[in-house]
């Protein structure tokens, strides 16, 4: 359930306060009114500039991963809205817009995995972009100014450079729900994921290891392209490159990365698709062999066509993955296990090298206490010396399985286990057969005297329960502290006498 009023109120108040405090001579306020669906339209009164647009999204139910996007349009409705009422953005040179790849048919937001403005709020992934509220001059112009800003905190965004220019206009505040971080809305508001152009899965999957024994490998992509995005000539592009991090000595890497190694598979209809290669050739200028590879998968559609020839393809949505071609020898398996083990350590301890991503040639490197260099060294030392809880837990479990359950410690472990898991039993009955010599001549007569200790115990318990003081306290409640005191004193006496050598004289 969305809590618009709280957010909107906070939104308005914070915005007003910041505006008054920072720009008292250019005060403005952003009033956002609830609208139908999952988008909200508001207006800006006044004009000015702002650095931080305070947007309080902490009140949202973030469990399903709400996404807040803000875009702008002039109040006069003359700002190149497009046929469907919302601004028809184009990726603009003023600021890159990784979220927005298709401006022709309204806002289509996609593939936030590649964006940089990602933040986590209330445990869910939140990402947002502000598409600038541009001056009137630009509204009817040929090139709308698209200002973008990165998330500052979970309550606002910073703008610029340049700073956001606020003029009288109608910012659109759009919400949607999609925890997957894929496309979240179109120009009519939020759309369900089932109608979103998307790449559902790729094969090989991200971080997958492909055995050389399975080559040639058939690359496969599953996804969906909706009618809005679909145009005749749509295609799926697969681009495979060697990972430059591990194979930087390959002179072809740069060339291939820029120009080569692309394979196109046609998408013939607006529907779910499942396209595959028939070989692992993929027009690669190098054979697939053992190593690490990176892949780029894109749904593309043409800009226009002439006589059936398509030109100026652009990307509707894309996805990046890496995969490994590996042999499956015993050594490889050990290596994979070690990699998994190291990943476990890394995941449990965090990335110790996170602070170490700097250049040694950086003359502005911070050498102060708490600076990046010190933190880097501290991270490495901590990583080297302090075992992670996950590793310790795993090691203790290995020790328990491999040592404490084997002779001779295994016998002690078994006794301890029996004590820990022991259940009350029933005590055995005691019975004695007493011969009766006088009643018969063959001396076979006997009487059996039995003693049911369980019955005796039960009766004793009942008897004990009857002993109570006038306040209703049981005998155990009264006596137990005295017994514990006596036992404690005896223990202390034993230790005292032992320490003073008196026990040997007892």
């Amino acid at each position, binding site marked *: 359930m969305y809590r618009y009023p709280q957010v909107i109120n906070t939104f308005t108040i914070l915005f007003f306060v910041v505006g008054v405090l920072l720009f008292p001579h250019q005060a403005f306020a952003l009033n956002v009114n609830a609208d139908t669906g999952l988008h909200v339209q508001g207006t800006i009164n006044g004009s000015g500039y702002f650095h931080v647009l305070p947007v309080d999204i902490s009140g949202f139910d973030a469990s399903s991963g709400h996404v807040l996007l803000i875009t702008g349009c002039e109040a006069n409705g003359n700002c190149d809205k497009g046929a469907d009422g919302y601004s028809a953005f184009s990726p603009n040179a003023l600021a890159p817009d990784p979220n927005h790849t298709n401006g022709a048919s309204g806002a289509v937001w996609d593939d936030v995995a590649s964006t940089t403005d990602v933040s986590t709020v209330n445990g869910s992934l939140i990402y947002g972009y502000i598409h600038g509220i541009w001056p009137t001059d630009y509204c009817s112009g040929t090139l709308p100014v698209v200002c973008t800003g990165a998330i500052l905190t979970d309550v606002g965004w910073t703008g610029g450079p340049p700073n956001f220019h606020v003029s009288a206009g109608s910012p659109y505040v759009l919400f949607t729900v999609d925890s997957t971080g894929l496309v979240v809305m179109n120009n009519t508001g939020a759309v369900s994921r089932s109608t979103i152009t998307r790449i559902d899965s790729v094969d090989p999957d991200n971080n997958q290891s492909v055995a050389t024994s399975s080559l040639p490998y058939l690359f496969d992509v599953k996804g969906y392209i909706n009618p809005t995005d679909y145009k005749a000539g749509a295609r799926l592009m697969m681009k495979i490159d060697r990972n430059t991090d591990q194979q930087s000595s390959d002179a072809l890497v740069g060339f291939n990365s820029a120009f080569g190694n692309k394979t196109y598979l046609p998408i013939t209809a607006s529907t779910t698709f499942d396209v595959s290669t028939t070989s692992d050739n993929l027009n690669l200028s190098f054979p697939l062999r053992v190593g690490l590879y990176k892949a780029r998968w894109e749904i593309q559609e043409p800009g226009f066509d002439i006589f059936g020839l398509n030109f100026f393809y652009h990307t509707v949505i894309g996805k990046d993955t890496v995969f490994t071609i590996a042999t499956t020898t015993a050594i490889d398996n050990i290596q994979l296990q070690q990699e998994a083990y190291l990943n476990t350590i890394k995941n449990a301890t965090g990335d110790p090298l996170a602070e170490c991503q700097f250049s040694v040639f950086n003359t502005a490197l911070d050498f102060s206490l708490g600076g990046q260099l010190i933190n880097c060294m501290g991270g490495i030392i901590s990583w080297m010396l302090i075992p992670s809880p996950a590793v310790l837990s795993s090691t203790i479990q290995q020790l328990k399985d491999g040592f404490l359950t084997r002779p001779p410690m295994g016998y002690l472990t078994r006794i301890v286990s029996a004590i820990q898991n022991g259940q009350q039993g029933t005590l055995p009955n005691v019975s004695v057969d007493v011969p009766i010599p006088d009643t018969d001549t063959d001396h076979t007569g006997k009487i059996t005297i039995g003693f049911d200790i369980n019955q005796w115990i039960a009766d004793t318990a009942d008897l004990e329960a009857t002993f109570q003081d006038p306040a209703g306290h049981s005998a155990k409640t009264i006596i137990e502290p005295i017994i514990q005191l006596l*036992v404690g004193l005896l223990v202390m006496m034993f230790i005292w006498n032992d320490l003073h050598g008196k026990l040997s004289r007892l």
Partner: protein
Amino acid sequence: MISTLILTELVSLITTIFSFFPQVDVLPTILGVNLDTVIVGGIADVLRLADVFWYITDVIQGFLFIMGYLVLKATLSAIGKAFQTLGGEAIT
């Protein structure tokens, strides 16, 4: 990383050595006496008695405390003797 490596290698060495021994699930039978049954049955009886004669629990706890004290003393004594063997002065 280093401590993890040492710890892991140590545990791997120990577990490798003891992997030749069988897994102990129950105590053995010696001279026809099933020790596992005896232990489990004996504990069941003690627990039954302790449920009624509840002060047995306090006595057992005191006994275990003294046993712990004796084990600790023996351990410290062994460390002291080892220290002395290595050339240190006797700990008095």
